[in-house]
């Protein structure tokens, strides 16, 4: 019984981009739930056919009962001038595909011809996810040189970089011929979202360690040593991410809702706990202390991000003082006291950090939520056209309160436009007053289009049906659909103007990446950033005995 009657946080507050751009990894994050789900699967390196330079083919797999997932890796030589994190690149140090089952020789030959080409190759419905990655040459070469001369690499340098390879895209769900989600969605082990993408990245990490050891050994067979497990564990996989992720969260409203709703539901349940066990509080404190190592090794040149990191550090100092002086398990509803204090005294960056940390002691609250984080968007696609205009008006007034107050006649409000670049079929954003192409704008200016819709429907006869309205106004159909979705899924809509002059697109990326479980957000501009995944995660042979707090094992 929730005696305090704690409510879910208001979507109008939580769904602001500045707040979403302050989210951190948590127990709900997909890399953590992936490891929890697959820890009892059998991991195997099935093939490792690399030459002395580390080029060739390798296969890794997870299997359990009759199910098998195989990562097929193709490593190749590229010139340094061909190595680019930009999406315009056409060659990469390594390319990867997750195959459904055990690939035959014919499959491997087929994949060898296509996977290294990425977007211009074709894969089949036997493949599930596709990716490519480039070496961090600085870190990779240093590790090879050190190991081949019988020394472990310099930890300081590796801590600064954090990984040996950086992926520049991970594709799934039907892209480039990959299996459509409907073919596999009933498999229990992949109920959690992006689970196969997370598997691919995890196995790529193992490949990077095996490759670096192999090259060092080939270089100096007598003297070379293996990369120390403690150092390897501290390395993740980097990722460079651009604007491709931003439209995703707009185009998958019910999925977005489910992610945020699960986070909010977890918070509400934790705040509603009347009694807090001393072990639970101690566990929270332990995670908080350990996590500071990761914050302290968070390096970026971005002023925007450094301000956020400083705000987080300052907030944590204040918070620890509060925790020490004012909190005890003898107090009823301690978590609610902690949250309320944090809400009143901390900035978004630290507040959302505390929210993530509060989940740590509560497997019993978090675990049941994980399987609710996927969604079948198509089930909510049909517009309830029998409803009345008055219903739609009420929905907009309730769910887009701040949006309908925006004046889109102001240049700053209608400043940017989203488009798909012809060169790479990737989303981009540009100033509509300076660049050409605004006439081909993507339907991502939801706030503006909702406002336009609202202005139309307040002039309509309120007893008319939506079907009647759409006969005259099909230009509003995409936002009418969204309005009826937000009525059922209140966290499905970003409560901000995604085309305003003050838009910071990386806030949209960070929202998604935080749910992936990424850390060390490192914006390289307001439109792309680098992150780290799986830093501190158990190595493949350690998975079965790993615990869920590995994310806080990062050491300096």
């Amino acid at each position, binding site marked *: 019984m929730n005696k305090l009657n704690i409510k879910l946080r208001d979507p109008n507050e939580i769904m602001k981009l500045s707040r979403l751009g302050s989210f951190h990894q948590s127990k709900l994050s997909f890399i953590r739930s992936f490891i929890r789900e697959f820890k009892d699967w059998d991991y195997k390196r099935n093939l490792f056919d690399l030459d002395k330079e580390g080029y060739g083919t390798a296969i890794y797999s997870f299997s359990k009962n009759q199910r098998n997932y195989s990562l097929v890796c193709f490593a190749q030589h590229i010139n340094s001038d061909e190595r680019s994190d930009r999406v315009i690149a056409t060659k990469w140090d390594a390319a990867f595909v997750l195959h459904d089952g055990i690939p035959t020789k014919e499959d491997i030959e087929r994949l060898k011809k296509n996977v290294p080409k990425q977007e211009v190759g074709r894969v089949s*419905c036997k493949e599930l996810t596709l990716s490519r990655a480039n070496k961090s040459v600085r870190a990779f070469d240093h590790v090879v040189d050190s190991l081949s001369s019988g020394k472990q690499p310099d930890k300081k340098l590796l801590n600064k970089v954090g990984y040996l390879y950086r992926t520049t895209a991970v594709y799934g769900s039907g892209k*480039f011929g*990959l299996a459509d989600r409907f073919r596999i969605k009933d498999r229990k082990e992949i109920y959690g979202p992006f689970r196969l993408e997370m598997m691919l990245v995890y196995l790529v990490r193992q490949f990077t360690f095996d490759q670096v050891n192999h090259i060092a050994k080939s270089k100096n067979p007598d003297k070379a040593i293996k990369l120390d497990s403690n150092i390897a564990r501290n390395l993740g996989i980097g990722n460079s991410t651009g604007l491709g992720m931003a439209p995703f969260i707009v185009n998958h409203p019910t999925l977005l809702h489910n992610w945020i709703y699960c986070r909010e539901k977890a918070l509400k349940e934790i705040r509603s706990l009347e009694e807090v066990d001393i072990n639970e509080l101690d566990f929270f404190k332990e995670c908080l202390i350990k996590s500071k190592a990761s914050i302290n090794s968070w390096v970026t040149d971005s002023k925007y991000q450094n301000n956020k990191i400083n705000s987080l550090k300052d907030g944590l100092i204040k918070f620890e003082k509060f925790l020490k002086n004012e909190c005890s398990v003898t107090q009823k509803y301690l978590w609610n006291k902690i949250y309320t204090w944090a809400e009143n005294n901390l900035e978004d960056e630290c507040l959302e950090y505390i929210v993530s940390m509060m989940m740590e002691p509560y497997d019993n609250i978090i675990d049941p939520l994980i399987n609710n984080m996927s969604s079948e968007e198509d089930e909510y696609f049909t517009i309830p056209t029998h409803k009345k205009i008055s219903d739609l008006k009420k929905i907009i007034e309730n769910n887009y309160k701040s949006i309908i107050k925006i004046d889109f006649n102001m240049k700053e409000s209608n400043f940017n436009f989203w488009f*798909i670049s012809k060169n790479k079929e990737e989303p981009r954003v540009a100033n509509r007053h300076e660049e050409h192409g605004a006439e081909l704008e993507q339907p991502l200016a939801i706030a503006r289009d909702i406002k336009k819709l609202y202005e139309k429907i307040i002039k309509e006869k309120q007893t008319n049906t939506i*079907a009647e309205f759409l*006969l005259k106004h099909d230009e509003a*159909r995409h936002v009418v659909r969204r309005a009826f979705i937000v009525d059922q899924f209140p966290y499905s809509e970003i409560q901000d103007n995604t085309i305003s002059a003050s838009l910071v697109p990386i806030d949209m990326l960070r929202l998604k990446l935080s749910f992936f479980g990424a850390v060390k957000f490192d914006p390289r501009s307001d439109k792309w950033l680098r992150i780290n995944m799986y830093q501190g995660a158990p190595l493949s042979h350690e998975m079965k005995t790993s615990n869920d707090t590995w994310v806080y094992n990062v050491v300096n």
Partner: protein
Amino acid sequence: MQSLSEIDTTSKRASKAAGFSWGVAEEIGKAIRSLELFGLPGIKNLNLYLNKIEKKHPEKISKIDKENKNKELCPIYSGVAFLDQCKKLEILKNIKFYNVNYPILILPFISKASEILGIKILIKFNKSSFLMNFNKSIFSNNLQNYDIDLANEISVEFLENKNSFSDTEWKELYKISEKTFVEESDSLKAKGAGAGLTDND
């Protein structure tokens, strides 16, 4: 082979480029995906139709009546309007559309309406029949000739939910199913749940 996701996205983008609104283009993406899933040539017909309307965008439909006539009717605007109004249209029992371009393209919208209404819908044009089964499948007597650029008349009939078999056929099958039952002996009756009790308490 293209995935259904690629079919959906490309159909949506192409339709937007051909002058449909984003919301209608979204419907077209799902519709073509559904046609291809059912094994019908959605991509081929959409391609032909978008080429046909490249120079002159089709007229929108303002209302769906029992009989819908125009010089040429757009299968997409007609299909979307039908879907939006299907709950009102059901009472008309039978609806006719005349001069519909690329009539295969109207099918997925009516198929979706069949799911929403929970009834089967029969569509006939150019000697072909298509039975819409709650958007789970489309059954047709024509498995080859889908290159139809114009249907002079499309008949849409809302079918009553009724059995496809006679009472006698059902009874016969039921009798066979009874062979899985065990005849109760006096002893089994005496030991069954509720034995020896009355319901009058």
